[in-house]
């Protein structure tokens, strides 16, 4: 695993997972966490490929996927921009939170902890 910085974004590339998925995933998280402001321009395909040392078509594929989700939009002749719609971000946050909860539940069940205990512990846990 290697950490590489592209503009204001930081990527951790793990070659054992499809590369375009990682780019999509990490941009998604960055948007949800508010690390990228809405409406900012994403690095160009070429810059991204150069910095991450990967094939440009992988980056193109990732950007297309993000566009498809509505998280990014392509403006002709200008490049790809993060969406300006707050609602989209909210939806994304919800979706990522749901994913985290599903993971949490999965882990608890594997540990043999029932819902009640888990909820109790969650209440007692500190939000720091």
């Amino acid at each position, binding site marked *: 695993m290697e950490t590489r910085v592209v503009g204001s974004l930081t990527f951790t590339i793990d070659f*054992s997972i499809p590369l375009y*998925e990682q780019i999509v995933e990490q941009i998604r998280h960055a948007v949800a966490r508010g690390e990228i402001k809405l409406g900012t321009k994403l690095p160009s395909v070429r810059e991204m*490929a*150069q910095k991450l*040392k*990967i*094939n440009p*078509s*992988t980056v193109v594929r990732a950007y297309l996927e993000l566009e498809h989700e509505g998280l990014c939009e392509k403006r002709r002749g200008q490049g790809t921009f993060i969406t300006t719609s707050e609602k989209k971000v909210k939806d994304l946050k919800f979706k990522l939170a749901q994913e985290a909860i599903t993971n949490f539940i999965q882990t608890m069940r594997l540990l043999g902890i029932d819902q009640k205990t888990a909820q109790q512990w969650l209440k007692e846990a500190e939000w720091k």
Partner: protein
Amino acid sequence: MNPIVSCQQVTYRYGKKLAINQLTASFPQGQAIGLLGENGAGKSTLLKLITGIMQPNAGQIKVFGETPNWQTLKRISYLGDRAQWYKFHRIQEAIQFAQQLCPNFQLSRAEHYLEFLKLNPQDFVESLSKGQMMRLQLLLCLSRDVDLYILDEPFSGIDLISREKIIELLIELLAERTATFIISTHEIYETEGLFEYVFLLKNGKIVKKGKTDQLRAELGSIQNVYREVFR
């Protein structure tokens, strides 16, 4: 999509030694293809058969739908393994020579790469280091505007800086052009992000192939796949 290169039951022998053993494969068009394998797996031999420098003992190869001949070489740019340029040339003369001999040689592009790769056109080829020599040869290869680039071991045995420069140049090219690249290497670590499609070659046969992202999803990194195959 039509494959750009297809091999049918190709066999090549050096004397009694079998270098390529009934190999069947088709190389997809417009992608960066990695040809991976240990030394002596038959990578170079296969690439030489594709360019038409050597002829297979049995089987059939089609490049752009034709049996390789000197006409197909107009559409192929080939960098041989451990190739060297003529020692008595200056870099400038080498570029002039390539421009006069190769159709579709883009002088403006060559000049741009000259700067990008930090080569001095007044230097004699004889005085270049290994890495610089590789940079020069890559410049000569990549300044041509062709449909198929075949690079045999462009990363082996050269210094880190040259290697990084070369990778940068390749990414630049991949962003610019829709040509097909077939790159053979046994140094996967730095290059595995470049390939969209890989073939793993062992004892003159293809033992594994596929889209890299698909292989990653199924089996983990290409390095792992490689280790598994060759251990």
